[in-house]
């Protein structure tokens, strides 16, 4: 009896507030837009019994999904989200790896503090961390003031409201997700392997590529997925730092819903986004599983 309550309470909560809402999205993505409240049709009318259900089912169609393929905006936004996420993930890896490497090779008594310093930004408001770059990157911003003051440039650079700013924002906010898994892989690395390689005549750079990188592969893969997956659906960064030409699907969905009030198309955008996300998520799960098996 107790066991049943223990299972049922969180189970029913998640069913009601996670699964059912998602089924509603699926349903509305198959509906038509209407000038009504709520602004879509058909709506399920259970008071009419079986007739209501059949009328509801016959009103569903894939029109919105067809619409997504005919209008350039959507597939361009999906492709551009994937591209921005991929490039940003690569950049985050390039910035994060040396930091993780430095941490793993720092003196032992420094490491808890360094860990704390990496985790601390993660607890600070995401919105504020993105916002902090607006003052730095704007035309009259601190970066331009610095560069002009040093005499390196004479006209201010336009960085804010471009894709460059979006990349900077993503690298900045997701950096801890890249550093932590790579650090934990590098920390376990056996230093004797590197000494052996150097004794056998490897240069330190060759030893790094032949030993350190392959042995930290799992950390790199995990870090890349942890940055890539959430970046695809990102909304805050492209809206604050990106410009009108920055196309990302999270922003499109938001605008479709709040500005155009086209709920059926917004729902269809959400369904397709989830279908796209399933691939990296499954790959990530499989990688984690493999790693657990290798360790266990």
């Amino acid at each position, binding site marked *: 009896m*107790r066991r049943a309550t*223990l*299972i049922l*309470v*969180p*189970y029913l*909560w*998640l069913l009601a*507030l*996670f*699964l059912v*809402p*998602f089924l*509603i*999205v699926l349903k509305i993505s198959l509906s038509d837009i209407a000038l009504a409240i*709520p602004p879509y049709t058909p709506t399920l009318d259970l008071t009419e019994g079986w007739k209501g259900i059949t009328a509801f089912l016959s009103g569903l169609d894939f029109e919105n999904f067809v619409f997504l393929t005919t209008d350039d905006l959507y597939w361009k936004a999906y492709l551009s989200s994937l591209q921005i996420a991929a490039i940003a993930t690569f950049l985050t890896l390039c910035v994060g790896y*040396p*930091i993780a490497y*430095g941490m793993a*090779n*720092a*003196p032992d008594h420094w490491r808890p503090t*360094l860990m*704390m*310093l990496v*985790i601390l930004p993660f*607890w*600070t*408001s*995401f*919105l*504020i*961390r993105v*916002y*902090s*770059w*607006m*003052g730095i990157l*704007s035309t009259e911003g*601190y970066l331009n003031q610095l560069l002009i003051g040093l005499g390196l440039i004479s006209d201010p650079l336009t960085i804010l409201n471009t894709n460059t700013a979006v990349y900077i924002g993503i690298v*900045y906010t997701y950096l801890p997700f890249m550093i932590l898994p790579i650090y934990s892989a590098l920390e376990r690395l056996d*230093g004797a392997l*590197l*000494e052996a390689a150097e004794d056998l005549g490897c240069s330190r750079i060759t030893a790094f590529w032949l030993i350190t990188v392959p042995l930290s592969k799992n950390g790199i893969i995990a870090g890349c997925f942890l940055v890539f997956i959430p970046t695809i*659906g*990102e*909304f*805050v960064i492209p*809206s*604050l730092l990106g410009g009108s030409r920055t196309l990302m699907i*999270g922003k499109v*969905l*938001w605008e479709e819903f709040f500005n155009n009030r086209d*709920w059926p198309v*917004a*729902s269809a955008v*959400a369904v397709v*986004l*989830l279908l796209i*996300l399933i691939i990296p998520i499954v790959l990530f799960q499989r990688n984690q599983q493999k790693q657990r098996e290798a360790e266990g």
Partner: protein
Amino acid sequence: MRRLTWFNATSLTLGFAFLYLPMVILIVYSFNASELVTVWAGFSTRWYGELLQNEAFLDAAWVTLQVAVVSSTIATVLGTMAAYVLVRAGRFAGRTLFSGMIYAPLVMPEVITGLSLLLLFIGIGLDRGVLTIILAHTTFSMCYVSVVVSSRLISFDRSQEESALDLGCTAAEAFRLVTLPIIAPAVISGWLLAFTLSLDDLVIASFTAGPSATTLPIKIWSSIRLGVSPEINALSTLLIAVVTVGVVTASLVSKRATLRQQADEQAAQRA
């Protein structure tokens, strides 16, 4: 092999400068007297004063705090139950679906979570306000809590619970007297995580908040869309200060708890 070469020192310095410089600049410029955010015109606490008189911000902060406290507390209870079920309840019908529903919200884009909850609330005719934000935040943060708590449940020695049961405890007593004290640090960090996630959330709150309730992130969002503002700099500085003090205190407390637990275990072994 642990040596601090010039390469490692440089990458650590540059890396941490990159992580912290933007926030340091933000904090410094929050004490700027000038209205023009990018021009330094002397030290002043003017913007903090204006912030404390801005009722819209204070109201939003109050709503945010209420939502965060209530949602993180419910999420901690539900998340701990879910973790216990996942780790200890064995097989039951629909277990795969259950664990799927625990992990899926962690990778779900916020725009989709927000959209789907909004459509649910409209579908059942629930007016959007503080209650709907609390329901939304509880749902996604309970999943984070259950991941944190279940990793602690997996790692601890089950025989301690079993011996309590052998010695005549009921299952509830064994949980309260043995399991809960052991997983307490994880439950507390789960609560803290849920609390900060709720304080922080813009996207899901924007979908589920109605005109009657505005949270701080929504308020911040609508003013920074127009550009950098000195008042927001002051507000950000206050938030950063609160988080820093909170995280440092929490880590010191958990360090002490771990040390005490280790001492207890050693004493138990000697006895």
